């Protein structure tokens, strides 16, 4: 089977827990088990945002994690996509009016894909990652086109 061009590059994902109850995190880990096995598609969890294409954020963002969330977002190289996994990260969930919550995630960093659920199903996360993948491919194609146009302009001048 020949894979289409969206599969020409593996998608590396960095998972950040900003105060989640671990329900969503367990579902993310389930993606790596033989039942779902996302690594066969090249989707891989990495240990550093500096190696990542996608930031996978869980949790409603508590005060302690806010500066870390912002720093990790800044440290992820461009082009990047942010996926919020779970209801807490999307809206604050049951913790929305807690004294210690400063979320949701999109209040502080731009979010590309929301995957709501408490907890989400692994299939929903895979769907979210694919949506982020398409966005990244679009950005890369636009960037490549811009580079080609720039090179052509330089050559003609």
């Amino acid at each position, binding site marked *: 089977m020949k894979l289409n061009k969206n599969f020409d590059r593996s998608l590396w994902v960095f998972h950040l827990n900003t105060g989640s109850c671990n329900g969503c995190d367990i579902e993310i880990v389930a993606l790596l088990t033989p039942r779902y096995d996302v690594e066969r598609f090249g989707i891989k969890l990495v240990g550093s945002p500096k190696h990542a294409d996608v930031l996978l954020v869980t949790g409603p963002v508590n005060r302690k994690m806010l*500066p*870390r*969330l912002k720093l*990790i977002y*800044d440290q992820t*190289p461009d082009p990047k996509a942010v996926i919020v996994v779970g209801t807490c990260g999307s809206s604050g969930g049951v913790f929305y009016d807690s004294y210690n919550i400063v979320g949701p995630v999109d209040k502080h960093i731009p979010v590309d894909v929301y995957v709501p659920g408490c907890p989400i199903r692994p299939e929903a996360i895979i769907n979210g990652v694919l949506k982020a993948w398409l966005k990244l491919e679009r950005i890369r194609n636009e960037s490549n086109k811009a580079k080609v146009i720039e090179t052509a302009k330089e050559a003609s001048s």
Partner: protein
Amino acid sequence: MNIGLLETGSGNWNAIIWLIMFIIIGISAIWIRSHGEDQYKKNTDQTKPFLSGNREISKEDSHVGASHIYWGFTEALKRYYKPMVALHTGNINDYSGWIILVMAIIFIIVGVS
């Protein structure tokens, strides 16, 4: 005649092969580097080390002094170290005094014997 061949008995080393390997590895390294991510933003947090989302503390604060590394060693020999540290006052007059005192003792011993 093999130029640059060194035989040690347990192996050999050839300058030409070393040079060829150096060039091949160097070109490979440059090629891999050229395929790296080039869209990162310079002079931002993207070029700083990742420390689990924590800010990098200053080099002075993160310095591990020799006293930490050799703690067990100095602790075991503290009966020797404590008087030695006390003798090291940092005053050159004290050190000169010690030299004169030790030399005087040596001359006395040598002269007596």
